[in-house]
């Protein structure tokens, strides 16, 4: 089974557009949706409401930069600092062109930094490319989680 994609997005419109884009990319992976950085870490560390989830890491984390509570950079930092999570591919998916954000993300070990294009067509292409690369082409680290596709809202 394919590993899920963890989508961390607080903006409902971006969330919907991203899901449409993922749908159009025809990826078979399940997409796990969390709405802030704290929930993302809970999911990854199997804490809080995610205590009972099955073991295993997602194929890729699509991480928004600006998030309530714990922001994207902090989530990234935490992931890279945690044994067992360190190897998860993380893609920063953001509206920010800001150089310092890009720089900081790479310093913290992001795998890719994608500025969401304004044009929807390009946005769909970008998401599809990401999904295909990280969830399909990329050889996942050992110990992958195999689940069916479902949604968490």
């Amino acid at each position, binding site marked *: 089974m394919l590993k899920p994609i963890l989508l961390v997005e607080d*903006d409902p*419109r*971006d969330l919907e*557009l991203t899901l*449409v884009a993922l749908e159009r990319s025809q990826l078979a992976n399940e997409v796990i949706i969390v709405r802030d950085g704290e929930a993302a870490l809970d999911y990854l560390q199997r804490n809080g409401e995610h205590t009972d989830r099955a073991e295993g890491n997602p194929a890729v984390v699509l991480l928004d*930069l*600006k998030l309530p509570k714990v922001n994207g950079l902090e989530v990234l930092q935490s992931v890279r600092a945690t044994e067992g999570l360190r190897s998860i591919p993380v893609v920063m998916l*953001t*509206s*920010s*062109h*800001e*150089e310092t954000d890009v720089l900081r993300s790479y310093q913290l070990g992001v795998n890719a930094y994608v500025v*969401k*294009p*304004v*044009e*929807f*067509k390009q*946005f769909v292409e970008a998401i599809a490319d990401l999904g295909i690369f990280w969830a399909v082409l990329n050889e996942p680290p050992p110990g992958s989680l195999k689940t069916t596709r479902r949604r968490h809202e």
Partner: protein
Amino acid sequence: MSALPLPDLAQCAAEPIRTPGAIQPHGRMTVLDAASGELLAYSANWGSEREVREALALLPADHARLAPGTGPAWIGSLPLAGRTHDATAHRQGDCVILEYEPGGPVATMHAPMYAVAHEVLPLLTQADSLTALCQAVAREMKRLTGYGRCLVYRFDADGHGEVLAERADPGYDSYAGHRFPASDVPAQARELYRVNHIRVIPDANYDPVPLVPAEGARSPAALDLSFASLRSVSPVHLEYMRNMGTPASMSVSIVSRGRLWGLISCHDHQPKSLTFQARVACEHLGRLLSLQVQALEDNTEVAQRLALHQRVLTLVALMAETDGTLQKLVSPALALHELTDATGAAVVLNDICWTIGKTPPPEQVRELAHWIVGRGEDLFCTDRLPEAWPGGEALLPHCAGVLAVSISQVHRHVVLWFRPELVQAIQWAGDPRKTLPSSGRIHPRHSFDGWQELVRGRSAPWLQAQQAAVSELRQALIALVLRRAEEMAGHAIELGRVNKELEAFSYTVSHDLRAPMRHIAGYVDLVLEDNADKLDERSHRYLQHVKDAASYAGQLVDALLDFSRMGRSGLKPGPVDAGALVEDLVEELKHGERGRLIEWEIRGPLPCLWADPLLLQVAVRNLLANAVKYTRGRDPARIVVAATATPLGPGLEITDNGVGFPMKYVGKLFGVFQRLHRAEDFDGTGIGLANVKRIVERHGGTVWARGEPERGATFGFVLPPAPSRPVESS
């Protein structure tokens, strides 16, 4: 005020003028022990010691009333040798000195004092100038005493006397406006005048009467007669008087703020004595004059200081309106030199020198300023520069006096004022160059004929008030300079804060403004896709406009962000091969403009430029894309890229045959959001050329444009060549 070498007056200074051991013969003296009242000595002109003791028995001195250091007090009168004598007493050390002098008629005893109080005092208070005051005093003194000539004169800083007022009977020489050299009144005589305010010599041809000891008493030889009116005066002075032809004299001191300011000097061709009461009146007149002189000088000083204070305030206010740099001091509007009645002024900042008015050459001003800084004084002042500074002689005659203040000694910041040489003709009352005769004994000068001296190398003296004013200016300038430094530091902090805010603003623009644009564009796309067959043509068109607008807004936000980032990010310059750069960009543009016929011409070889590769690429792409954009509709479009150069350095020129522009708009071309064409004709955000300009100028280069409507345009830029040393990226 004289450059004359004065003779050695050591002999005068050594003369025992306070302890002559003798008196003048017109009165008699007895000296008692202050404690016991025992007779110690008496003048040799008493008939006998018994006569002395009889006089003492008649009119005993009241020891208790006599305070040391004050002049004689009247203790009564008594007949001696068939005449009424006034008896006075004063205390000197542990002695009481009694003096007996022939008195005037009893009826007139109070008249002189009354005249001073009732008649002279109002005249003095009415005098509004120093000259008027001195003239009134000379006139009244002459009237009061009946001397043939009365002079009022003032000592200058060097001790020379200058006659300010004179009243003389016919037959007397006039000394009005003349000067008496300092040697006429030696230092120790001046000191005696300072403490004892009156001296009368009734007849210069007298034979001194020695003091003799009473039987069994100690020798009175060393007795200090400073306050005794009968004190025998220096034989030199008597000779001086005889030379002058004036056997009778009286001198009354004018003392201002404890300093001997001048003398009221009276002379007569005939021997002439003055009663004790008249003497007291004269002494009081002297005191009144002293007070008035001091008041007048104070008033003048205060008025000068006030006026100068106002001018300093105006000057500082004008300075404060400028950027506060010291150079502004010499701007004509401030008329700095007029502040101190100088003919020129200069501001020296280390090796820079700015001047206004008449000044020495900047080279010498700088040299002088540095010498002044070396003295380590806040204020330097001289009216005789050649004496003070070795280089001063060369500056004559345009500069003989200098007033200067140091604003900063560390930085050698000095403000200077200059005054020209003022050749003074001094009218001396006789040649003041006394000579020592071979006999060794000093003699006073014989000639009192007018003698003129020319004094060179001097300027008019700087007034105390002027010195105070420049000191005040100095304080204000230091405060101003410090304040500017603080303001600059404040600006830097403020600038840093604004930059931070701008960054935060850019961040908001980049993130929070892009997102809604993206959403609008995205959802409109979804609606268009999902309902393609349900929408009528009009709705379809409207939604297309919404999509285009959102898309354009998104581009605008991106462009704005690029522009702001260009101002903030540091340059990482290096050598860039413009040929390769242009080739790549042309390929990229050809790819994007398939279907159009564009004739590209690259007139190589293109130069190697010293620039940040990424930013230069942005700039050149903008220029090439502009050429592509504005040649739309031309068939064929022609775009030429050529090397160019100016004295500043190498660069590129891009020429097209597009729509061009009227040259009157060339200034607007590079402004942010300046567009010269309608939006539907040519797309774009209007920020591209602003970016180009910003990039080129950040590299220290220049950018230009030439155009002609419907004929095409040329855009060019040059950048400075690579520095010889690698520059640090900021």
